[in-house]
């Protein structure tokens, strides 16, 4: 069966510090991968998605970036965090070419920027 992992689960970082969040998927190959942010009281905002190694599409301009160094690894980064980067970050995957885009979510990372 497929599983998706995210770490760390919780992170507190000062403004201006770098960020690296990691997501890995097990039990499937060539998945589509996604990063979402969920701010307090708001819905899910799609940040990035990837259909293959090294292929990243950005949905919103921001100081965040994403990379996919391996087939089942997706990394969210920032060189300098802003207060507005605080939120709950969710990674998700879907089957490449499934058509329906049914997505499966990880447990999330709670990021607090102080």
């Amino acid at each position: 069966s497929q599983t998706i992992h995210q770490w760390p689960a919780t992170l507190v970082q000062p403004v201006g510090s770098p960020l690296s969040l990691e997501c890995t998927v097990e039990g499937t190959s060539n998945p589509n991968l996604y990063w979402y942010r969920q701010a307090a009281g708001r819905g899910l905002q799609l940040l990035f998605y990837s259909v293959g190694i090294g292929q990243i599409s950005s949905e919103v301009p921001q100081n965040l970036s994403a990379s996919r160094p391996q087939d089942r690894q997706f990394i969210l980064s920032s060189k300098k965090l802003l207060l507005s980067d605080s939120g709950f970050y969710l990674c998700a995957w879907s089957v490449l070419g499934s058509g329906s885009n049914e997505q499966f979510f990880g447990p999330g990372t709670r990021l607090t920027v102080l």
Partner: protein
Amino acid sequence: AQSVTQPDIHITVSEGASLELRCNYSYGATPYLFWYVQSPGQGLQLLLKYFSGDTLVQGIKGFEAEFKRSQSSFNLRKPSVHWSDAAEYFCANSGAGSYQLTFGKGTKLSVIP
């Protein structure tokens, strides 16, 4: 552009009462429709999905949803709510061949003992 509307931000029901959460979508062709549930501090769990066929779909935890094309709706129902159903519920849709899900803003469900 696709959009999903969940008109109720917060709903409170008594334990044992029936529940209906509303969802309206905007998409020209037949959409793929989903309901997800999120407990506090957790990721999203898929409750059920509609792709085609029978318009009444059954999901996990006793939930069901009905696709009504004429009303562009995909409302989630449960006949008897349990205290453990307290969570936030998200409706989402996707078009054929799309890489993205479009989410509603969510409905928070509170359950009174």
